């Protein structure tokens, strides 16, 4: 069962600010979806390995070489706020 407190905690983890109405709706809807998902517990998966990814590829390496890349001005062009070559944000602490 998912509670309103759970929703508030998860919203903080996800960096979302929810209105009172959203908290209400998400508590109800997430509860329903998770209840629906509990059907997975019908299956015994004790000895089943998880499948995170379907391709049998691991550790894709490449040579550590400098290649063409975007110049800082192109990257910074979209910054909502900047100072010189830096992204500017409000105070952190």
């Amino acid at each position: 069962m998912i509670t309103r407190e759970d929703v508030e905690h998860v919203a903080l983890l996800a960096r979302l600010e929810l209105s009172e109405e959203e908290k209400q709706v998400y508590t109800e809807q997430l509860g329903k979806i998770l209840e629906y998902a509990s059907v997975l517990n019908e299956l015994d998966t004790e000895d089943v390995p998880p499948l995170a990814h379907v391709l049998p590829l691991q550790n894709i390496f490449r040579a550590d070489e400098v290649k063409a890349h975007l110049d800082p001005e192109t990257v910074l062009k979209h910054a909502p706020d900047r100072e010189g070559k830096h992204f500017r944000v409000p105070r952190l602490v």
Partner: protein
Amino acid sequence: MDLCFLPAHELGRLLREKKVSAVELAGAVYSRIDAVESRVKAYLLTLKEEALNQARAVDAALASGEELLPLAGIPLAVKDNICLRGVETTCASKILKGFIPPYDATVIERLKEQRVVFTGKTNMDEFAMGSSTENSGFYPTANPWDLERVPGGSSGGSAAAVAAGEAVLALGSDTGGSIRQPASFCGVVGLKPTYGLVSRYGLVAFASSLDQIGPITRDVRDCALLLNAIAGHDPRDSTSAPQEVPDYTEFLVPDVRGFRIGIPREYVGEGIAPEVRAVLNRVVELLEGMGAEVEETSLPHVRYSLPAYYLIAPAEASSNLARYDGVRYGLRVPAEDVVTMYKRTRSQGFGAEVKRRIMLGTYALSAGYYDAYYLKALKVRTLIRRDFDEAFKRFDLILSPTAPTPAFKIGEKVADPLAMYLSDIFTLAVNLAGVPAISVPGGFAGHLPVGVQFIGPPFAEGQLFRAAYALEQEAGLAAKRPAL
């Protein structure tokens, strides 16, 4: 001659024979856009001037005797989660409003080599999360066959554009059915390639272990031609499969004699509209008439696809969408401190469905719930994959409806997320298993098109094309178009 409704392979021939110019063709598509776009709303933006310039370059190349590649001069629409350098890419989200990518996706680079003409960026459910295109942060798209109905989603704009003659080809992306379900609803062909066949570099990530870019086209030959152009290994995508890609048009023979086709009983049971069942039965008759062996089979774990998917995809999404924080690009809602800025930016920038999935995914990954939800879902994913591996020991292909119903009414399912999720019930397992599947028109339910889905083993796109092509030739639906 109505150029906008001819397939790319015929238009390519007309271009090479100089019976039509690329500029005439682009002009015809934009006239069509002018005539119907205010009702369909398939696009978020169109690129008329750039497209005409590209078309002029194709005509000049042709005049100078240059050998054109198969898709040169063909108007193609791009789903708005694929980066096209210098053109706004928003994923239909307010949080990316104004974002102009400084690079091309690999698929776009490859299509530029072909000299494709890019018509514009198409509407979609925000961040590809949805099944109706109603979750677009800007406006919904209408189904060209019935303007009161949805085109499906999330690649609804791309499917509607092709169906309405507003583009000849389109790119979509498919995480749980987002190419195939709108293809079914709009009466066009849509392919979800094997995971790893098409580079995801430049595709805005939703659920990285499930996402694939694929073609949405007027017929099966066009689908094979477009896959030829975009498939193949890309060192910039570490999940791209390092293997050779065949010429898929070589599989286009109308012959399915001896093909063993399995129909999972889990996919023809409850929840299917009778008119969809009728189309499936008719398709089975046609395939058997052509000499295929169709038999019932079972994929015992596919009924767990929906709950597994709605834990895995939101979990991956919650992680992928953490990058939208208002720091480097996109929307920023100012605040006194940085955490409040993140929260306000994300709360105002994301729509309801995106927030719902971020919440669900964050919950499923959070301390104390990870094993019970996320890890459990990944284990069930193994069981689903094994079901397909087993089935493909006995069958060449699996056949099912693409969606349980024809296109539904706009607004019908918006208030009930679970009802909306159920419209992907037959497509989700394919993404979880990483196998390829194609939706091809199978018939009509009244005035609405209904697609069927062929599913194949990994990298068996050729087999899918062969079966879909044979069915297309036999079903004789190609001349049908919406009375728009």
